[in-house]
């Protein structure tokens, strides 16, 4: 308990950064992932191919490598000025690019569960492809993929800790500061683990209740 009480500001700021990382990259990857899923089912072959290549590459690369690339290698290309591309921004970029590939797959599996008749009926009503997707198919698809979507977001929350290895002062980085101060790192890490359990359990509960409330009876 002493470790937690004596270093409370450290724990609070660490978890605040973690939650900030999580929220920004969750919104970013949901948006990018949905766009990618729309590209993957589009009637234009080029769009489909581009999205497929992106998803295949990103899904099969370790997240640590993506972090490594954006933290160390990407600044060498000088595409954006090094001052505005802090380690925090690098972490967000890596998390969004990586997670959106998984979100894309989840959303696409949801699109496949929407009955064929829905798309056919929208075409019969004269809706364009974009209208059909955004007004008819996607709303139903997103409802049916709530459980895997929340699982992906939980994985994202846990993945934010990798940023600790790349100079972002979030929950995973509490350890190194603790050991600098000479505090007990083992107990500190147990507290960090406990905090994560406390963060993940409400998300699992949310997952169950959303699943019940939003599920489409077919």
């Amino acid at each position, binding site marked *: 308990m002493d470790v937690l009480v004596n270093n409370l500001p450290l724990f609070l700021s660490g978890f605040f950064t973690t939650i900030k990382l999580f929220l920004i990259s969750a919104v970013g990857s949901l948006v990018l992932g949905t766009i990618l899923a729309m590209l993957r*089912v589009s*009637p*234009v*072959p*080029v*769009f*489909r191919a*581009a999205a497929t290549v992106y998803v*295949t*590459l990103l*899904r*099969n*690369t*370790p*997240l*640590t*490598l993506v972090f*490594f*690339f954006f933290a*160390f*290698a990407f600044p*060498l*290309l*000088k*595409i954006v000025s090094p001052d505005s591309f802090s380690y925090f921004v690098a972490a967000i970029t890596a998390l969004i690019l990586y997670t959106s590939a998984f979100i894309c797959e*989840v959303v696409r*599996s949801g*699109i*496949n569960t929407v009955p*064929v008749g829905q*798309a*056919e009926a929208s*075409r019969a009503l004269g809706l364009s*492809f974009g209208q*059909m*997707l955004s007004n008819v198919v996607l709303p139903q698809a997103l409802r049916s993929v709530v*459980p*895997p*979507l929340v699982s*992906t977001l939980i*994985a994202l929350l*846990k993945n*934010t*800790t*990798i940023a*600790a*290895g790349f100079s972002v002062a979030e*929950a995973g980085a509490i*350890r190194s500061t603790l*050991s600098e101060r000479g505090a007990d*790192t*083992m107990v*500190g*890490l147990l507290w*960090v*683990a406990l905090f*994560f*359990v406390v963060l*993940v*359990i409400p998300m699992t509960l949310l997952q169950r209740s959303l699943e019940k409330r939003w599920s489409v009876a077919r």
Partner: protein
Amino acid sequence: MSSVLFDVPGPKARIRHRLLAVVGVVVVVGIVGFVAYRFYDTGQFDAKKWDWIQYTTIQQDLLTALMNTLQAFAAGAVLALLFGAVFAAGRLSEHAWLRGPSMVIVEFFRAVPLVIMLFFFYYGLPTVGIKMSPFAAVVLGLTLYNGSVLAEIFRAGILSLPRGQSEAAYALGMRKTQVMIQVLLPQALRAMLPTIISQLVVLLKDTALGFLITYEELLRYAGFLGGKFEFGRPLIPVSIVVAFMYIAMCLLLTALARYLEKRNRRSKKHVELDDTGKTEAVALAAD
């Protein structure tokens, strides 16, 4: 490919699609071209930065690093499968004193980030006198995390088998252990094989976390090589090469999963899962 979302294009739609295709190609080529220009501009195409590939010692070291990655993967995979089978059986047990602790352990290790576990084993435990090599810490972390996920996958597989299977086995006079080992587990394994292998892909990618606790695996070696001044700090070429090594390994595993699934579907022993089993499998695969 679900072509049901759109009709076979008519003449007007074909022109529109072609126009969009041109726009798409221009955008993709534009992005790739811009990145290539940045590569050229910052000298990433210089022969000096790619020189390192030709050195035999570096090739050997790269291979050693790859072997270290594969070692951690192999050890972690075998132990995680064992851990998963044991704790899935524990969670399905009729005895509350087995079921309760198994549930707590599985849920706990699923909720804690792997990075925190690795830090705990490598930096935390030595403070109470338990020293661990980076390899042991990586394997232990991979086992506990992926083992818990695999336990849930096995459990979902067993629960989604048709009830007639266990009822028939009990009617034949089999004991609980026999029913589990001889009837339920083999079928569940077969049905969940694609999900299990995709979890193994996750495990393979997670070995890269060893980078954070100084395990000498592929990514760590990439960092070391990328910082070498005599090759002009080839961080970008090295990360590209290493990324392709990881992607190739993961795609091989995925191809294996596809092959097994295809073979499975032809087999007479294949059991069709009910819908809840399938959705649960998808939800777990997203972890």
